[in-house]
């Protein structure tokens, strides 16, 4: 354990590199390792190989890494600030808001590829702010926040079902596909917008590591120890919420990553957030890159939904760790 505590950055970076290499090398088009290297070095004239690596596998792997990292970091932050081990990035109505925003856009007929994510982002932020605004009347305690999140989420899903009922079958199918989460439409244009946003949000959260540590001791203790609870909480909620909204806007709702990866990292490396947050980012990225590669490879050329793979991979591993460690983090 001690050794792990010192070497984790190298170990996790190596794992992420391995996962990315694996993800780049698997798929229905057979590309050997030497061909892959030739393509990456640029000395090949095989147009299909180039297209497969640069226009399909690479953007998709990068998106999986970004989404996995963002969801895990946001999950860790929400679990700390809400003092609830069941918190995930979607708990404060972000998922419902994003889905409602996206489906509203589809329903209104804005099918433009770049408009959907914007609508989802706006919807998610709107839901988060609504939750915060209502909960603030009760000094924003974590119970009130969670309760408001659940209610706003229910309201959003009711409106969503109503909109889906109103729309024609073909549009409904597209919306439902989007809601189940997918990485298939990775696009560099979107990546270059979202990546900086996620990075900035991550840096804000990382710099708030000390506050997050204090939050896990309870709000009163945190206040006694000199933390401006209200302001710190707002900062964390906005950063983690915006991060979640951004990746939900790109990849739909991918479950399980944001709930379990922080727990797994906490079990292995301990609860201190200055380490938990970056480690969660790397572990979450590795995990989703692997899950996506498997979802493309297991039944190739057919693809299975990535959410199925994340749950099938993550749940047993998580249960094993819980059993082996015998104490909840």
């Amino acid at each position, binding site marked *: 354990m001690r050794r792990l505590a010192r070497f984790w950055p190298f170990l996790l970076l190596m794992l992420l590199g391995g996962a990315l290499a694996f993800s780049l090398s698997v*798929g*229905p*088009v*057979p590309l050997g390792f030497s061909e892959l290297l030739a393509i990456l070095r640029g000395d090949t004239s095989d*147009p*299909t190989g180039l*297209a*497969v690596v640069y226009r*399909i*596998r690479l953007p998709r792997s990068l998106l999986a890494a970004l989404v996995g990292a963002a969801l895990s970091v946001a999950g860790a932050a929400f679990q700390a600030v809400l003092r609830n081990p069941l918190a995930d990035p979607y708990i404060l109505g972000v998922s419902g808001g994003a889905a409602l925003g996206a489906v509203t856009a589809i329903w209104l007929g804005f*099918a433009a590829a770049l408009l959907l994510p914007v609508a989802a982002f706006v919807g998610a932020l709107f839901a988060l702010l609504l939750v915060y605004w209502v909960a603030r009347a009760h000094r924003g305690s974590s119970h009130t926040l969670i309760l408001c999140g659940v209610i706003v989420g229910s309201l959003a899903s009711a409106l969503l079902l109503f909109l889906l009922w109103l729309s*024609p*079958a*073909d*549009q409904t*199918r*597209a919306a439902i*596909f*989007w809601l189940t989460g*997918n990485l*298939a439409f990775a696009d560099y244009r979107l990546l270059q917008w979202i990546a900086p946003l996620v990075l900035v949000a991550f840096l804000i959260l990382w710099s708030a590591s000390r506050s997050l540590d204090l939050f896990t001791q309870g709000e009163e203790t945190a206040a006694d120890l000199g933390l401006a609870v209200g302001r710190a909480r707002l900062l964390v909620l906005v950063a983690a919420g915006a991060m979640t909204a951004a990746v939900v806007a790109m990849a739909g709702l991918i479950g399980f990553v944001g709930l379990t990866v922080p727990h797994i990292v906490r079990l292995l490396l301990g609860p201190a957030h200055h380490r938990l947050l970056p480690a969660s980012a790397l572990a979450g990225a590795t995990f989703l890159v692997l899950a996506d590669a498997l979802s*493309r490879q297991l*039944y*190739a*050329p*057919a*693809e299975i939904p990535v959410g199925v793979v994340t749950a099938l991979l993550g749940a047993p591993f998580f249960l094993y760790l819980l059993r082996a460690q015998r104490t909840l983090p």
Partner: protein
Amino acid sequence: MFRILLLILLLASAALPAGAAVVTDALGRPVGSERPPQRIISLVPAVTEILFALELDEQLIAVTRFCTYPSAALAKPNIGDYASPSLEALAALRPDLVIMAADAAGPELLSRLEMLGIAVFVAYPRSLTGTAELIRTLGRLCDRQPRAAALAAELEQTARCARRLTKGHQKVRVLATVMTEPLVVAGPQTLLDDLIDIAGGVNVVGASLSRYPTWGLEAVLAADPDLILVSPHPGQEDAAALYRNWPELSAVRNNRLLSVDADWIQRPGPRLSLGLRALVRGLHSIELPQPVTSCGG
């Protein structure tokens, strides 16, 4: 004992009034009554087309909101979705026969309708032959046998003609796109797969766990079909636009993205003959003769 049973059966069948028929549906259930159904509700767009072609428009009292052809179907009362129709509206119309599809609606709907005491025929055609069979069965059930026999024969003759005229031609490797978000393609055991085969093509989607698997673009690049079938549904993104972003595909370079009206090739009904003609034209530049009986041989 056996003879007595046989005698009883014979007597019983003689006692049935003229026009009565008992047929077996796709689930093997016997469906029939003493007289041909007079108040039919169709929950299947293709069956709606078949019933109109069998001149049963007076007996057809309601359809779904997806029954868009022929235009007279749009004037019929509609009882909503094919998977979850309004049971109350349906029962209020007092149908003596409801026709549903095995793949579109679940067994719950079937048992609900049976509980309401409504006769249900379940259709599940997945091939051109199956469609012809369905037409004949509906003809027997609804006392329209001659008309049904002619319709079914026309479909089968078109298929025979297509097979004969494309014989000896190089098989065209075809990918049939069903929708783009996600990218769903037609696999084996589907009507599209059957039509591609009849039209002198080979479906590049091989054995698969799902009849309509979801593919990534990389799978399309790996299969590199000679021709890609794009059949835009109204309100859906055009699959041709998606593929044109990928000049690495032979079908795109050779300008072989074939667009055929989705209802002609995805609805197991009388218009399959139109779809088949369009496919043979697109795959092999062969025009099937009109009428198809003059195909020769």
